[in-house]
C-alpha cells in the first residue's frame, strides 16, 4: 500500500524537472560562450563568436525548438515510446548542431572582413557542450530502447546523417576539415597503421592471456601470483613502459642483427605491439578466468551425468554460458587498446597518435582534434558492434 502511494506521488511530480532545468541552464550559459572561433591563421588564437552571431536567427530557432521539444518530452508524464522520441530529437539536435557549425564557418569565411585562405574557423566551447549533451541524451535514450533492431537503426541513422553532412561539403569551411584535407594523403595510412598496431597487440595478448587465465582457473594458487604480476604491469605508466622497452630491445637487435632485417628494433611497431599486448594481458586473462568461472559446476556435472560427451558439454553448456563474458572482455580490451595505441606514435610506431602529437607540437588544436576524434570514432564503432554481438549471443535465460 505504502509503495503505491509513493508511486502516485512520484508520477504526479515529474522526476525529470531537476536534470532538465540543469541542462537548460547549461545550454543558456553557452549562449555567452563561443560557438565557433575565427582566427586569421591556424597558429594564433581566434576571436570567439557566440551562437547568436554564428548561427544567425534561423539556426538559433531550429536549435531552440529542438531543445524545447526535448524538454517537453522529458517533462510529460507517462509519454508513450518516450525513449524513441528522445533519441530521435537528440539525434536531430546533434545533426543540426554540426550543420549549424558548418554554416557558421562558411558565413565567417565569406562575410567577415579581412578573411583569407588562411582564416580558420574552429569549434568552440559552446558547440562542444551542446554536442556532448546531445550525444549523452542520445546514448541514454537509445540504451533504454529494448528492440536491438531499432537501437542499431538509430545509431546507424545518426552516423549516416553526420557522414552525409560531411560528404556534402557543408562542413568544408571548418578548420577540422582543413586539417583533414591537408593530411588526406597520410590519413588513411595512419588509420590503417593504428588498426594494425591494435590488432597486433590483440593477436599477441589473446592467446597468451587466455592460456594464463585458463591456467589460473586450474591452479588457483599459482593463478593469484599470475594476476599479481599482471596487475603490476598494468600499473606501469604507458609512456614509461614504452621507454623501458627501448633499451633492452635495442640491445637484443644489436646482439641479433638478423632481427633488424625483419623490422624489429627498439622503436617502431615491434616494441609498440609488445607494450600493447602487455597491457592487454591482464584484462584478457581476467576475462577468460571470470567467463569460465561463471559456468556453474553443477550444470557441467549434470551434463556429464546425463551422458554428454566432453565435446557436447563444451558446445552445449560451457561455451554458450561463457560467451557473453568473453565478448564483454573482448570489447573492453579492444577499446582500451585503440586508446593506448595513440601513445605508440611517441616511439615512432605511427597511428592516429601521429596527428595528435604533431598537433601538440605545432599548437594546432584542430590537428589534435582530428587524431582524437578519429580514435574515438573507431573505438565507438568497435564498442557498438561488439555490444550488439554480445546482446545477440547472450542466451535468454541469462539476460
Amino acid at each position, binding site marked *: 500500500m505504502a509503495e503505491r502511494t509513493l508511486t502516485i506521488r512520484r508520477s504526479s511530480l515529474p522526476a525529470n524537472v531537476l536534470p532538465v532545468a540543469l541542462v537548460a541552464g547549461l545550454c543558456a550559459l553557452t549562449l555567452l560562450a563561443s560557438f565557433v572561433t575565427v582566427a586569421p591563421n591556424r597558429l594564433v588564437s581566434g576571436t570567439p563568436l557566440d551562437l547568436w552571431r554564428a548561427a544567425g536567427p534561423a539556426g538559433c530557432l531550429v536549435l531552440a525548438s529542438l531543445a524545447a521539444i526535448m524538454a517537453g518530452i522529458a517533462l510529460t508524464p507517462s509519454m508513450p515510446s518516450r525513449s524513441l522520441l528522445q533519441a530521435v530529437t537528440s539525434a536531430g539536435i546533434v545533426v543540426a548542431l554540426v550543420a549549424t557549425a558548418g554554416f557558421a564557418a562558411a558565413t565567417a569565411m565569406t562575410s567577415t572582413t579581412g578573411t583569407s585562405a588562411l582564416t580558420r574557423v574552429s569549434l568552440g566551447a559552446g558547440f562542444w557542450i551542446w554536442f556532448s549533451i546531445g550525444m549523452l541524451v542520445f546514448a541514454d535514450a537509445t540504451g533504454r530502447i529494448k528492440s536491438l533492431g531499432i537501437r542499431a537503426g538509430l545509431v546507424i541513422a545518426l552516423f549516416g546523417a553526420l557522414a552525409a553532412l560531411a560528404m556534402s561539403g557543408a562542413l568544408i569551411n571548418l578548420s577540422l576539415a582543413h586539417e583533414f584535407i591537408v593530411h588526406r594523403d597520410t590519413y588513411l595510412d595512419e588509420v590503417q597503421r593504428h588498426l594494425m598496431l591494435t590488432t597486433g597487440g590483440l593477436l599477441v595478448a589473446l592467446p597468451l592471456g587466455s592460456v594464463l587465465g585458463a591456467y589460473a582457473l586450474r591452479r588457483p594458487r599459482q593463478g593469484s601470483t599470475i594476476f599479481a604480476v599482471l596487475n603490476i604491469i598494468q600499473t606501469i605508466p604507458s609512456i614509461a613502459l614504452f621507454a623501458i622497452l627501448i633499451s633492452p630491445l635495442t640491445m637484443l637487435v644489436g646482439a641479433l642483427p638478423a632481427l633488424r632485417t625483419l623490422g624489429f628494433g627498439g622503436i617502431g611497431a615491434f616494441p609498440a605491439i609488445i607494450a600493447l599486448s602487455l597491457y592487454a594481458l591482464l584484462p584478457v586473462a581476467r576475462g577468460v578466468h571470470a567467463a569460465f568461472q561463471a559456468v556453474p559446476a553443477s550444470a557441467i556435472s*549434470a551434463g556429464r551425468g*546425463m551422458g554428454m560427451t566432453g565435446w557436447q558439454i563444451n558446445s552445449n553448456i560451457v561455451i554458450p554460458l561463457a560467451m557473453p563474458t568473453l565478448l564483454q572482455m573482448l570489447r573492453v580490451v579492444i577499446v582500451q587498446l585503440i586508446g593506448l595505441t595513440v601513445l605508440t606514435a611517441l616511439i615512432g610506431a605511427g597511428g592516429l597518435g601521429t596527428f595528435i602529437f604533431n598537433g601538440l607540437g605545432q599548437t594546432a588544436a584542430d590537428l589534435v582534434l582530428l587524431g582524437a576524434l578519429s580514435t574515438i570514432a573507431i573505438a565507438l564503432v568497435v564498442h557498438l558492434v561488439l555490444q550488439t554481438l554480445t546482446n545477440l549471443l547472450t542466451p535468454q535465460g541469462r539476460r
Partner: protein
Amino acid sequence: MITLEHLTKQFGDTGAVEDVSLVIAKGEICALVGPSGAGKSTALRLINRLIEPDSGRVLINGEDVSTLPAVELRRRIGYVIQSVGLFPHWTVARNIATVPRLLGWQRERIDARVEELLDLVGLDSSHGPRYPHQLSGGQQQRVGVARALAAEPEVLLMDEPFGAVDPPTRRSLQSALLDIQARTATTIVIVTHDVDEAIRLASTIAIMDRGRLVQAGSPQEILRHPATPEVADFFGGPRLGLRLLQTTEAGERTDFGHTIDGDPVATDATLDEVVARMVATGATELPVLDGADGRHGVISLDDVVAR
C-alpha cells in the same frame, strides 16, 4: 536389477568405498544412508561410471557396466543431483529434452514426452517455455527429476536430491517421487543423510559408514534389529518409536468388520499420521476406510501400540 560386487574405490590413501556388495531389486527404492564422508555418493557414482572402481564391478540386469561405453550407459540411467544443475540458458522444456535429444529422438516424440513428464512431476505445460531462474527451488528440482526420467530409464540415481529445499517442499517432492515410482516402476537409488526421508521413501535401506556397508534391509528390520550400536543410535535414538510408526500402515492394524462415526483415515496412511489425528482430536479410536475395496474398520490406540 542392480548388483554391486565387492566395489572398492580409493582417493589417495583414504578408502572412499571399501568392499561394498549390495543387491537392489527391480522396481524398488533403495536408500544409501550414512553420515557425510561415508562414501554414499561415491558408491552411487560408481553405478553410472562417473567414477571408475579400483576393484569389484557393477551389474545392471546382469550386464557388467564396465563393458558398455560410459556415455551410452549414462544416457540409460537417470541422474539427479542436489544442486539440480539445470542448464540456465535453456528453457525448462529444452532441459527436460536433453537426453532424448542426445539419443536423437524425433521432434514430435520429444515434445510429447516433455508434456507427459511435466504432468508426471506435477508441473503444467505453461512451465515449458520458462527459464530455470524463473522457477522456485522445488519446481527446479521437479524439472531435474523430469529431465532424469526423460528417456524412460530403468534406473534413476539421486544424489541428495531434496537436500537443498525447505521441509514442506521436501515433503511434497517426496510424495511426488513415491507417486512417480508407483506409476513408472523405475528402480531408484537415492543417497540421503536424512533418516526420515530414507524411512519414508525406501523399501531397502543400505547404511554406510567410513566406506563400508554396515547393514542393509527394510526400514522395519533396521529399526528393530540394528546391526551395531551406531546404527541403533543413528536410526532410532529417542525417536525410535516414532520412526517405527512411520514404517507401518494403518491397514495392518485395523480391526475390519465394524465401524464408528467420524472422518475415516485411509488404510495406507502410516501409523504416525493415525497417532497425530488421535492426539489432535482427542480420540483413542478412529474409523478406517479402505479406498480400494470400500471396507470399513476401526483402529484403536492399543492396536497402534501393539507390536
